[in-house]
Protein backbone atom coordinates (compact mmCIF):
# COMPACT_ATOMS: atom_id res chain seq x y z
CA UNK A 1 0.00 0.00 0.00
CA UNK A 2 1.60 3.24 -1.17
CA UNK A 3 0.76 6.89 -0.58
CA UNK A 4 2.13 10.33 -1.38
CA UNK A 5 0.90 12.92 1.11
CA UNK A 6 1.65 16.25 2.74
CA UNK A 7 0.51 15.07 6.21
CA UNK A 8 2.72 13.29 8.70
CA UNK A 9 2.36 9.55 9.32
CA UNK A 10 2.34 7.48 12.50
CA UNK A 11 4.49 4.35 12.35
CA UNK A 12 2.55 2.34 14.96
CA UNK A 13 -0.71 3.06 13.13
CA UNK A 14 0.79 1.98 9.82
CA UNK A 15 2.23 -1.23 11.29
CA UNK A 16 -1.12 -2.03 12.94
CA UNK A 17 -2.85 -1.61 9.58
CA UNK A 18 -0.57 -4.30 8.15
CA UNK A 19 -0.51 -6.78 11.01
CA UNK A 20 -3.94 -6.47 12.64
CA UNK A 21 -5.81 -9.76 12.93
CA UNK A 22 -2.96 -11.75 11.34
CA UNK A 23 -0.78 -14.37 12.97
CA UNK A 24 1.44 -15.25 10.00
CA UNK A 25 3.77 -12.23 10.27
CA UNK A 26 6.91 -12.85 12.33
CA UNK A 27 9.04 -9.87 11.37
CA UNK A 28 8.30 -6.21 10.67
CA UNK A 29 11.02 -3.81 9.56
CA UNK A 30 10.43 -0.08 9.24
CA UNK A 31 12.66 2.58 7.78
CA UNK A 32 11.84 6.20 8.37
CA UNK A 33 13.82 9.02 6.86
CA UNK A 34 13.90 12.34 8.73
CA UNK A 35 14.87 15.89 7.78
CA UNK A 36 18.22 16.87 9.23
CA UNK A 37 19.17 20.44 10.22
CA UNK A 38 17.52 22.32 7.32
CA UNK A 39 14.07 23.11 5.96
CA UNK A 40 13.32 21.17 2.78
CA UNK A 41 10.64 21.43 0.15
CA UNK A 42 9.77 18.25 -1.71
CA UNK A 43 8.14 18.12 -5.09
CA UNK A 44 7.32 15.12 -7.24
CA UNK A 45 6.01 14.05 -10.62
CA UNK A 46 2.39 13.21 -9.76
CA UNK A 47 1.27 10.17 -11.71
CA UNK A 48 4.74 8.83 -12.42
CA UNK A 49 5.50 8.64 -8.68
CA UNK A 50 2.57 6.35 -7.98
CA UNK A 51 3.54 4.13 -10.96
CA UNK A 52 7.15 3.90 -9.76
CA UNK A 53 6.15 3.08 -6.17
CA UNK A 54 3.88 0.31 -7.46
CA UNK A 55 6.68 -1.05 -9.64
CA UNK A 56 9.25 -0.91 -6.84
CA UNK A 57 6.87 -2.72 -4.49
CA UNK A 58 6.10 -5.36 -7.15
CA UNK A 59 9.82 -5.89 -7.73
CA UNK A 60 10.39 -6.41 -3.99
CA UNK A 61 7.58 -8.97 -3.96
CA UNK A 62 9.23 -10.96 -6.75
CA UNK A 63 12.56 -11.02 -4.89
CA UNK A 64 11.45 -11.71 -1.31
CA UNK A 65 8.62 -13.50 0.42
CA UNK A 66 6.68 -10.61 1.93
CA UNK A 67 3.30 -10.56 3.61
CA UNK A 68 2.86 -6.81 3.23
CA UNK A 69 4.62 -3.63 2.15
CA UNK A 70 3.83 0.03 2.89
CA UNK A 71 5.56 3.01 1.27
CA UNK A 72 4.58 6.54 2.31
CA UNK A 73 6.41 9.59 0.96
CA UNK A 74 5.66 13.13 2.06
CA UNK A 75 5.75 16.21 -0.18
CA UNK A 76 5.67 19.93 0.59
CA UNK A 77 7.72 21.86 3.11
CA UNK A 78 9.31 19.87 5.93
CA UNK A 79 11.30 21.08 8.93
CA UNK A 80 14.24 19.59 10.87
CA UNK A 81 13.17 16.40 12.64
CA UNK A 82 10.10 15.92 10.38
CA UNK A 83 9.42 12.57 8.78
CA UNK A 84 10.04 12.38 5.01
CA UNK A 85 9.53 8.77 4.06
CA UNK A 86 8.36 5.50 5.58
CA UNK A 87 8.90 1.98 4.30
CA UNK A 88 7.46 -1.02 6.13
CA UNK A 89 8.04 -4.64 5.21
CA UNK A 90 6.35 -7.59 6.90
CA UNK A 91 7.48 -11.15 6.43
CA UNK A 92 7.60 -14.55 8.08
CA UNK A 93 11.38 -14.20 8.45
CA UNK A 94 13.55 -11.28 9.43
CA UNK A 95 16.07 -11.66 6.62
CA UNK A 96 13.41 -11.08 3.96
CA UNK A 97 11.97 -8.11 5.85
CA UNK A 98 15.38 -6.47 6.30
CA UNK A 99 16.63 -7.02 2.75
CA UNK A 100 13.37 -5.92 1.15
CA UNK A 101 13.28 -2.71 3.22
CA UNK A 102 16.84 -1.84 2.19
CA UNK A 103 16.04 -2.60 -1.44
CA UNK A 104 12.88 -0.48 -1.37
CA UNK A 105 14.79 2.49 0.05
CA UNK A 106 17.66 2.12 -2.44
CA UNK A 107 15.23 1.99 -5.35
CA UNK A 108 13.10 4.83 -3.99
CA UNK A 109 16.21 6.99 -3.70
CA UNK A 110 17.23 6.42 -7.32
CA UNK A 111 13.97 5.81 -9.24
CA UNK A 112 11.01 7.55 -7.59
CA UNK A 113 10.58 11.06 -9.06
CA UNK A 114 10.94 13.24 -5.97
CA UNK A 115 13.20 16.27 -5.69
CA UNK A 116 14.33 18.12 -2.59
CA UNK A 117 14.92 21.86 -2.50
CA UNK A 118 16.62 23.74 0.31
CA UNK A 119 15.57 27.37 -0.10
CA UNK A 120 16.41 28.13 -3.76
CA UNK A 121 18.96 25.36 -4.11
CA UNK A 122 18.07 21.92 -5.40
CA UNK A 123 19.68 19.12 -3.42
CA UNK A 124 22.22 17.20 -5.51
CA UNK A 125 21.82 13.45 -6.04
CA UNK A 126 24.42 11.35 -4.25
CA UNK A 127 26.68 8.85 -6.01
CA UNK A 128 26.41 6.67 -2.88
CA UNK A 129 22.69 6.23 -3.60
CA UNK A 130 23.45 5.01 -7.13
CA UNK A 131 26.04 2.60 -5.71
CA UNK A 132 23.54 1.33 -3.15
CA UNK A 133 20.95 0.66 -5.87
CA UNK A 134 23.55 -1.02 -8.13
CA UNK A 135 24.09 -3.93 -5.76
CA UNK A 136 20.55 -5.22 -6.37
CA UNK A 137 21.11 -5.54 -10.12
Amino acid sequence: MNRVQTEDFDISTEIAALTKGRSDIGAVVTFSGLVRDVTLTLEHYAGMTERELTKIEAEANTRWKLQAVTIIHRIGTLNPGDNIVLVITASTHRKDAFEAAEFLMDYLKTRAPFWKREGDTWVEAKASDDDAAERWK
Partner: protein
Amino acid sequence: MKLLYFASLRQKIGLPEEDVTPPDSVRDVADLIDWLMTRGPEYAAAFENKITIRAAIDQEHAKLDAPLGHPREVAFFPPVTGG
Protein backbone atom coordinates in the same frame (compact mmCIF):
# COMPACT_ATOMS: atom_id res chain seq x y z
CA MET B 1 3.36 16.17 -27.53
CA LYS B 2 3.30 17.44 -23.97
CA LEU B 3 6.64 18.13 -22.30
CA LEU B 4 7.05 18.39 -18.51
CA TYR B 5 10.02 19.89 -16.69
CA PHE B 6 10.81 19.27 -13.02
CA ALA B 7 13.04 20.75 -10.32
CA SER B 8 16.12 22.57 -11.62
CA LEU B 9 15.07 22.02 -15.26
CA ARG B 10 11.72 23.71 -14.67
CA GLN B 11 13.56 26.56 -12.97
CA LYS B 12 16.03 27.04 -15.84
CA ILE B 13 13.46 26.74 -18.62
CA GLY B 14 10.94 28.82 -16.68
CA LEU B 15 7.98 26.58 -17.50
CA PRO B 16 6.45 23.51 -15.80
CA GLU B 17 5.09 22.18 -19.10
CA GLU B 18 4.39 23.01 -22.73
CA ASP B 19 3.04 21.47 -25.92
CA VAL B 20 5.51 21.04 -28.76
CA THR B 21 5.52 19.53 -32.24
CA PRO B 22 9.06 18.40 -32.99
CA PRO B 23 10.07 17.66 -36.62
CA ASP B 24 9.92 14.07 -37.92
CA SER B 25 13.70 13.81 -37.66
CA VAL B 26 13.35 13.71 -33.86
CA ARG B 27 13.23 9.97 -33.19
CA ASP B 28 14.65 9.39 -29.73
CA VAL B 29 15.09 11.20 -26.41
CA ALA B 30 18.54 12.53 -27.36
CA ASP B 31 17.14 13.95 -30.63
CA LEU B 32 14.39 15.69 -28.68
CA ILE B 33 16.91 17.26 -26.29
CA ASP B 34 19.08 18.43 -29.23
CA TRP B 35 16.03 19.97 -30.88
CA LEU B 36 14.88 21.66 -27.64
CA MET B 37 18.35 23.17 -27.17
CA THR B 38 17.92 25.09 -30.45
CA ARG B 39 14.82 26.81 -29.09
CA GLY B 40 16.60 29.37 -26.92
CA PRO B 41 19.37 30.05 -24.42
CA GLU B 42 17.23 28.91 -21.45
CA TYR B 43 16.82 25.49 -23.09
CA ALA B 44 20.50 25.37 -24.02
CA ALA B 45 21.39 26.08 -20.38
CA ALA B 46 18.89 23.57 -18.99
CA PHE B 47 20.08 20.70 -21.16
CA GLU B 48 23.75 21.72 -21.27
CA ASN B 49 24.99 18.71 -19.29
CA LYS B 50 23.00 16.10 -21.20
CA ILE B 51 24.51 13.15 -19.31
CA THR B 52 22.86 14.28 -16.05
CA ILE B 53 19.38 14.71 -17.56
CA ARG B 54 16.79 12.04 -16.79
CA ALA B 55 13.77 11.50 -19.01
CA ALA B 56 10.48 9.64 -18.78
CA ILE B 57 8.21 8.73 -21.68
CA ASP B 58 4.58 8.43 -20.59
CA GLN B 59 5.73 8.25 -16.96
CA GLU B 60 8.26 5.45 -17.48
CA HIS B 61 12.01 6.03 -17.12
CA ALA B 62 13.62 6.29 -20.59
CA LYS B 63 17.26 6.32 -21.65
CA LEU B 64 18.68 8.88 -24.11
CA ASP B 65 18.51 6.36 -26.96
CA ALA B 66 14.92 5.30 -26.19
CA PRO B 67 12.69 5.76 -29.30
CA LEU B 68 9.99 8.36 -28.68
CA GLY B 69 7.14 6.64 -30.52
CA HIS B 70 3.96 8.70 -30.14
CA PRO B 71 3.89 9.60 -26.44
CA ARG B 72 1.23 11.56 -24.60
CA GLU B 73 3.92 13.16 -22.44
CA VAL B 74 7.70 13.31 -22.10
CA ALA B 75 9.25 14.56 -18.86
CA PHE B 76 12.75 15.87 -18.20
CA PHE B 77 14.29 16.15 -14.76
CA PRO B 78 17.55 15.99 -12.83
CA PRO B 79 18.53 12.83 -10.89
CA VAL B 80 15.92 12.20 -8.20
CA THR B 81 16.59 13.12 -4.57
CA GLY B 82 13.62 11.82 -2.61
CA GLY B 83 13.63 9.31 0.21
